[in-house]
């Protein structure tokens, strides 16, 4: 059974068809990239899966459970992590606190935290935080306020916060946007580590085709709300429909 199964998802915004009967699935351990020109519906699809939007029609089955209609926090607790395109972090908190708050919610769900107990008494939470900080090479900056980090490090923190939720499936929305070539290489390595060493299934939305073709097991191409091609990087690279979508065949 697939880890994630998106079935016949249609999303309409007042007559505008953003997603038209979209079907896709992700197997455990896979890295699937979602590509497509601007306005193709990538963000809408991610927002539907993570619970920010309820689809007009269709269902999203995660690990055998339909998650349509659930709140984002419930979906996150099921094991769907997310890192955002714009760095959605907690700017005034330190780097460590940023990760820590996610660790708390992960280790304790929403219900077993005590508002009268000191938070440094939660050993397993601290361990999880330190582990994530180490994986993402943020230990040296751990006590700095998050807002003082340079851009590339902020994006890494963004991923760290998502990782601290202990995702089985992680959505990464343009993790290399605005990065220098060196930072992009680092991020590519990180994505490979996450998949191969940490066993995380990844859905990647990315515009940098070098990154996409480097890391993906499979690629799904969206265009004007429709899936126009699915396949391995080699298949997609040669696909005439994908070429025309990117080179101005449809949307311009």
């Amino acid at each position, binding site marked *: 059974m697939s880890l994630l199964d998106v079935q016949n998802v249609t999303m309409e915004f007042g007559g505008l068809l953003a997603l038209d009967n979209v079907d896709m699935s992700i197997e455990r351990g896979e890295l699937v990239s979602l590509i497509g020109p601007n306005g193709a519906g990538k963000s809408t699809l991610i927002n539907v899966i993570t619970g920010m939007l309820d689809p007009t029609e269709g269902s999203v089955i995660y690990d055998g459970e339909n998650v349509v209609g659930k709140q984002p926090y419930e979906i996150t607790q099921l094991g769907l992590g997310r890192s955002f395109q714009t760095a959605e972090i907690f700017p005034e908190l330190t780097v460590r606190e940023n990760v820590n708050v*996610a660790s708390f919610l992960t280790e304790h769900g*929403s219900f077993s935290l005590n*508002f009268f107990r000191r938070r440094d008494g939660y050993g397993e939470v601290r361990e999880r935080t330190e582990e994530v900080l180490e994986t993402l090479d943020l230990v040296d900056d751990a006590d700095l306020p998050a807002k003082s980090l340079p851009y590339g490090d902020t994006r890494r923190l963004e991923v760290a916060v998502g990782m601290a939720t202990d995702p089985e499936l992680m959505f990464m929305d343009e993790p290399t946007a605005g990065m220098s070539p060196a930072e992009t290489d680092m991020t590519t390595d990180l994505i490979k580590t996450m998949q191969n060493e940490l066993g995380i299934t990844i859905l990647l939305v990315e515009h940098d085709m070098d990154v996409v073709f480097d890391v993906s097991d499979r690629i799904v191409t969206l265009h004007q709300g429709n899936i126009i091609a699915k396949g391995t990087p080699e298949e997609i690279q040669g696909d005439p429909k994908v070429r025309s979508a990117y080179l101005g065949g449809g949307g311009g």
Partner: protein
Amino acid sequence: MSTDLDFGDEPLLSWDRWDRMKNSELFIFFAAGAFAVLFPWLFIRAPITGDIFTGYGSLAKTILIWSIFAVGFNLLLGETGLLSFGHAAFYGVAGYGAGWVAIYSYGHPLLMIVVGVIMGAVFSMLVAPILLRLHTVYFAIVSLAIAQTLFWLAREPFNQWTGGENGLTRMEVKPLFGDVTPADQLPDVLGTLMGSWMYLLIAVFFVITIVAVHRVKKSPYGLIFKAIRENETRSAFIGMDVWRYKFASFVMSATIAGLAGALLTVDKAFVGIRRLWWSASGDVVVMTVIGGLRTLFGPVAGAIVYQWFGGVVDGYPQIGQYWLLILAAVFTGIVWWYPDGIWGLFSQIGDFLRSLGGDNE
């Protein structure tokens, strides 16, 4: 071999030690206790402060009550980032609750406080489902509207229970124990320092409030509140049921506001309708912001400054009538130069002195 072994190379007095100590619960407890014990004497009677700082006895109680109110309010505004402009509602409801106990049941001070606090807390739970759906300025305006609605209800339709414009009178506050009433003087040196039993009662609840709020801030909730303040969307996507924690913060804050309201009723044996008026909500905002958002003791400093202006400067010849104008100027100045308020100013001075003292190893 030597006792130094316990501390390693660290001397007994060092900044590191201080930094660790100042955040310990025991230290907070003693600091709050020492402040509460010494404050009235320093404020009212100490020979060194001279005439210009001299307040009067009842003002010390008022300041401590407003300090409790503002410390609780800051848990919502400073930590969680929600600006309520209607906290007078919880302050007022608890105040009336305490009064009703004394009139219709039995006016033991502790019973009045317990019932008042519960009423304030329950009322906050009732309005939370409406208020917590709203954000920023909408949250502020609707909270204001709820408090104002209570004011108008208390003034006319329900005046047979609230006493309307005349306030709630005819209550008798019974002795705390034996034949000691809250208004009695404390014995010996305690009396010189703190005055009445009523002050001591307020001081005890003040210390409890400070320690409790400090504890919440150091708990997982403290971190979660800050996360909500910083980025509510992201909070949901790390698996946080944001509503639940906002609710917790809101009810905690309202409960503490209720404690302040109930204490005031015990102190005055009277509940005036102006406690529900919007200016009470505004006062607590000003005190908190002057004192220092996100700090534990800042709101206390804010309450002192605000009440001192209103209660003492107000009585000065010539400038007295301009106290509100002077306060406004002070407020603007502080917020302009020190966004962290008076407490932020104190910490800056502290850091400066520390750098002079050669803490640069």
